[in-house]
């Protein structure tokens, strides 16, 4: 099992951001994407998650293996923590939510409505969703935003256990998760160049 990207080019709003991005992830490996704001990390992750098409190149992944977590956690304010998680575990057809609650330290908050959680607690709930999906490849966009130091360490442990169990992770993050073994890919060299004027592309007049 492997997650492979070859010659990926991605665009946001019709403007090419990255081109020629390639990497391969084996079971147990994590890859951290780095690059300045706006360089296309989020767009690349959305392409990997299958939410938008790539301009060029291809992604090879095992079927039904990717779990995606974006900036927004998709938490419903009026549902309780358990209800929020149980919904996703039903959708993914995985087992119960107890283990996930336990591992993200949400046990004490289980019955509380999500609107009464702090930002960091909400983030933990969002990350607990990854555990109930039961999927091996995590595609994460800034997973540690608004987490305190303890929670970052907690998530680091969860991540390490996930990798040790043969999982994979592809993430964009600026914070060190305490994963020295993680591979790092700097996206700056892959910045898309504009096509030369007059190169005769079919829809050249538009770009």
């Amino acid at each position, binding site marked *: 099992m492997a997650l492979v990207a070859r010659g990926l080019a991605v665009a946001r*709003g*019709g*403007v090419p951001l990255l081109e020629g991005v390639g990497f391969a992830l084996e079971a147990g490996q994590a890859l951290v994407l780095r690059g300045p704001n706006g360089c296309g990390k989020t767009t690349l992750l959305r392409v990997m998650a299958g939410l938008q098409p790539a301009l060029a190149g291809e992604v090879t992944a095992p079927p039904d293996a990717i779990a995606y977590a974006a900036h927004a956690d998709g938490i419903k304010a009026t549902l309780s923590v358990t209800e929020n998680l149980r919904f996703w575990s039903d959708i993914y057809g995985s087992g119960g939510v107890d283990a996930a609650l336990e591992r993200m330290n949400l046990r004490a908050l289980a019955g509380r409505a999500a609107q009464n959680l702090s930002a960091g607690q909400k983030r933990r709930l969002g990350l607990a969703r990854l555990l109930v999906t039961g999927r091996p490849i995590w595609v994460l966009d800034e997973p540690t935003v608004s987490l305190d130091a303890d929670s970052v360490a907690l998530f680091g442990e969860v991540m390490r256990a996930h990798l040790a169990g043969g999982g994979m992770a592809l993430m964009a993050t600026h914070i060190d998760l305490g994963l020295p073994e993680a591979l790092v890919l700097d996206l700056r060299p892959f910045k898309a160049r*504009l096509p030369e004027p007059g190169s005769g592309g*079919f*829809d050249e*007049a*538009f*770009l």
Partner: protein
Amino acid sequence: MASIWEYANPLKFMRTTDWLLPVVAWLAVVVTAVGLIWGFFFTPDDFRQGSTVKIIFLHVPSALMAINAWIMMLVASLIWLVRRHHVSALAAKAAAPVGLVMTLIGLITGAVWGQPMWGTWWAWDPRLTSFLILFLFYLGYLALWGAIDDPDTAADLTAVLCLVGSVFALLSRYAAFFWSQGLHQGASLSLAPGTRVDWAYKAPLYISMTGFGLIFLALVLAGTRTEIRARRMKALAARERMA
């Protein structure tokens, strides 16, 4: 033999319409002028309707183009969805306001004609109602174009709306005919005996229809050129931001 799809290339389209647009535009002016002047001044008054009948030379061509514009948008939307030619999506966008105005002209001339004939400006007649509904569909389509920033997203969404809207517009037309039997005469050019229009009217009417078709074509070509230039400007601005 060059493929017709070559004209879907914006550059090729611009180069071709550089000379084609003036030709079509002048042709449209001449043909419409001939049709309308002949129709207004050189046809006999109708024995029942008097000279009011002459508004037919505006009413029928505009109503025809109102429907044809939507059909053209439908075809262009399909081409965009299937073959992803930008010019096609932009042509659909350019056709919409023309179709909207044609619908409006059809409705207004209809009201002006209906007042002396039926004694009322408006009637909830199936034909009139269908046209009013078509007007609403044009409004919605244009509003959706205007509301979305990203041009490709806007093209995709409006194309799907055009497809779905066409189905519902047809259903609405059927519903309107089901709902009310009308005052409106049958299609003026139908072959049904009794309502047939004499050749003295038919000839200038056909010329007017051709003229309106040419006006539509000229406006759509001009509109598409404007849209292509707008896209080009957007692309250049984006290029500048990136550099």
